[in-house]
């Protein structure tokens, strides 16, 4: 439908589509992530509060076995909340990794089609035929490609050349260069162009959004969870060691000791004891003492993760995730408004108006009529001239 083109405008639209694709990919994946941190009965924040509430109950009757069991259950729920959240994060990262692979395949299909179209366009131009239909089709494909990855377009004699914004060739004339994915030691797919790892340089399209969430956001959240889990487990364990269990023996670990580096602390968090009598509630070895429960309770207000108490640290994490999503969504909205305007502008330049075409048609018809009238007149005149002497 479009044959008049403004190449600068087309370029702006492509750039904006890359931006929007980026935000789309980012917001889409982050929205899935933030669900785990929405206020609910089973989120980590609630489980932390419940754990400390169970300790508080134990402090009123430290030898009571059902209260002790309550603490173990709450500790188990807390550990499970960390594990589930951490596992969901890993799962989501794997899904994003699949999306990255699929997107790269789509890019390869599109670049191959564009190269074919370039070839057809050149061939037709050489045969002095009008290739507009193919050019339109190519523009549509380049637009689709812009949704996926950052593309720069260079017009040349043999059609358009496409590169990523940092210069990796995608299409040159009638040749396309397929991207390749390879599993990185970190367990995710990296993107290669002609043997070179270009993962870190991709800056537009939904691919960039996916990569940002996969390689930065999810590992960041995972790290924060590890810090919190390790901080909680270590602080509670060391308080627990100072007490005595119901039999008067020194306290052991309450939670399985987290890895020294802290890495993987959330996904491996677990309660170390199953026997409620082993909870070290006593501070003097007598079964009725609740002195050490106070030490365990004090962890609630200690700066155990990056100098912050557990509930505050978790609240800050929720804030960080929420503001990532809301900022992304705001940028997404802005990008879609700009894109809408640019497309409207393109429509006003290149869109086919039926009225305009009708008016043109009438004009051509009139010209045709007039020309036909001239022929008729000439015919009549010739006729008159041929028959001049007949009368």
């Amino acid at each position, binding site marked *: 439908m479009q044959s008049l083109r403004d190449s600068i405008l087309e370029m702006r639209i492509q750039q904006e589509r890359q931006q929007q694709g980026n935000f789309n990919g980012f917001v889409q994946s982050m929205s899935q992530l933030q669900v785990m941190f929405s206020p609910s009965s089973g989120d980590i924040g609630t489980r932390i509060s419940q754990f400390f509430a169970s300790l508080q109950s134990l*402090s009123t009757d430290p030898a009571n076995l059902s209260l002790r069991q309550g603490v173990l259950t709450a500790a188990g729920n807390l550990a499970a909340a960390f594990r589930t959240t951490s596992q969901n994060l890993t799962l989501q990262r794997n899904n994003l990794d699949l999306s990255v692979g699929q997107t790269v395949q789509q890019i390869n299909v599109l670049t191959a089609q564009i190269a074919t179209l370039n070839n057809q366009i050149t061939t037709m131009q050489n045969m002095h035929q009008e290739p507009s239909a193919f050019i339109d089709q190519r523009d549509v494909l380049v637009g689709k490609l812009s949704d996926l990855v950052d593309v720069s377009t260079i017009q040349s004699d043999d059609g358009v050349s496409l590169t990523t914004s940092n210069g990796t060739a995608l299409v040159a004339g009638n040749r396309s260069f397929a991207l390749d994915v390879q599993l990185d030691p970190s367990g995710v797919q990296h993107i290669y162009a002609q043997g070179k790892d270009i993962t870190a340089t991709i800056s537009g399209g939904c691919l960039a959004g996916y990569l940002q969430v996969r390689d930065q956001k999810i590992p960041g959240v995972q790290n924060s969870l590890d810090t919190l889990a390790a901080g909680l487990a270590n602080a509670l364990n060391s308080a627990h060691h100072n007490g005595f269990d119901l039999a008067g023996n020194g306290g052991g670990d309450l939670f399985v000791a987290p890895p020294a580096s802290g890495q993987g602390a959330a996904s491996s968090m677990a309660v170390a004891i199953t026997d409620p009598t082993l909870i070290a509630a006593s501070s003097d070895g007598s079964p009725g003492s609740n002195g050490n429960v106070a030490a365990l309770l004090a962890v*609630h207000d200690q700066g155990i993760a990056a100098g912050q108490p557990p509930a505050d640290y978790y609240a800050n994490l929720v804030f*960080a995730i*929420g503001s990532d999503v809301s900022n992304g969504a705001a940028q997404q909205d802005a990008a879609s408004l700009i894109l*809408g305007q640019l497309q409207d502008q393109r429509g*006003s330049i290149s869109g086919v108006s*039926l009225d305009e075409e009708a008016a043109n*048609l009438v004009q051509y018809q009139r010209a045709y009529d007039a020309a036909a009238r001239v022929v008729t007149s000439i015919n009549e005149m010739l006729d008159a001239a041929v028959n001049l002497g007949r009368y």
Partner: protein
Amino acid sequence: MRVNPNPMPEILAAIQRNQQQQNDAILQLASGQRINKPSDDPAGAATVVQIHDRSSQADAFLSSIGTINGQLQMADSTLSSVVTALTRAIALGVQGATGTLSNENRLALAQEVTGVRDQLLSLANVSYEGRYIFSGTAQVQPFVADATAPTGVRYDGNSGVNSILVGNGFRVQVNLPGDQMFAAAGSDMFRAMNDLITSLQSNSGIDTAVSSVRQAFDYVTGQRVFYGNAINQLSAQQTYLSDEKLQLSQQENTVAGADVAGVASQLVNSQNARDAALAAAGKMSQGSLFDYL
């Protein structure tokens, strides 16, 4: 000027934005919450996490106070009975000190004082929900009658004290160990009672014995204040925590609760806008110049 002959994509985008606003408003009305996911208001969502934590903590404090209150009331009323019993013992002792009393009568008084002593022993061994109140932090019967002990009674408990947290950094001690309560040096209740019984039996030193029972009486009365204080502190804290909970829930409502009136009018607005956009899209001229040629 040439205008875009096909504005449909723009109109569709506008309709979608209206639809999104409408969905958000309906979700807020349905859940009653302005914050349904962290991105709805990141700072608010973080505040809600902290409010929930503090509110859960206040709940836990309140429930501890409720539990421990029973134990404190029990201790207080037990001590009240102890004081009554000691008063009776003093009266009996004073009666025994009058010189006109016959030997038989004095022995009968000694018998009666022995009964009071046994009553005191059972009071000192009182338990609440299976826990001895005056055993310190040991889980054993604290006072055991023991003829070999100079006071006639042996203390098996320990001197441990428990305190519970009932507010941020606010700890309340919730027990006095039996040795401090009934067996303090110089004011040993059971020794005084034992002395009184022996002196009545032997008719010597009754006055001294009575005065040491008086001393024990004064001491126990003084110690009883501890429980009264603890009960008062807890009840004040209970009021404070209930207020705090109310405040927290109001705060949460302000931060996260949906402004129902506002959201409802927003819903109506977005519905109207959407209807208008739909109507406009439907009314868009279908014809062209071709129709008139």
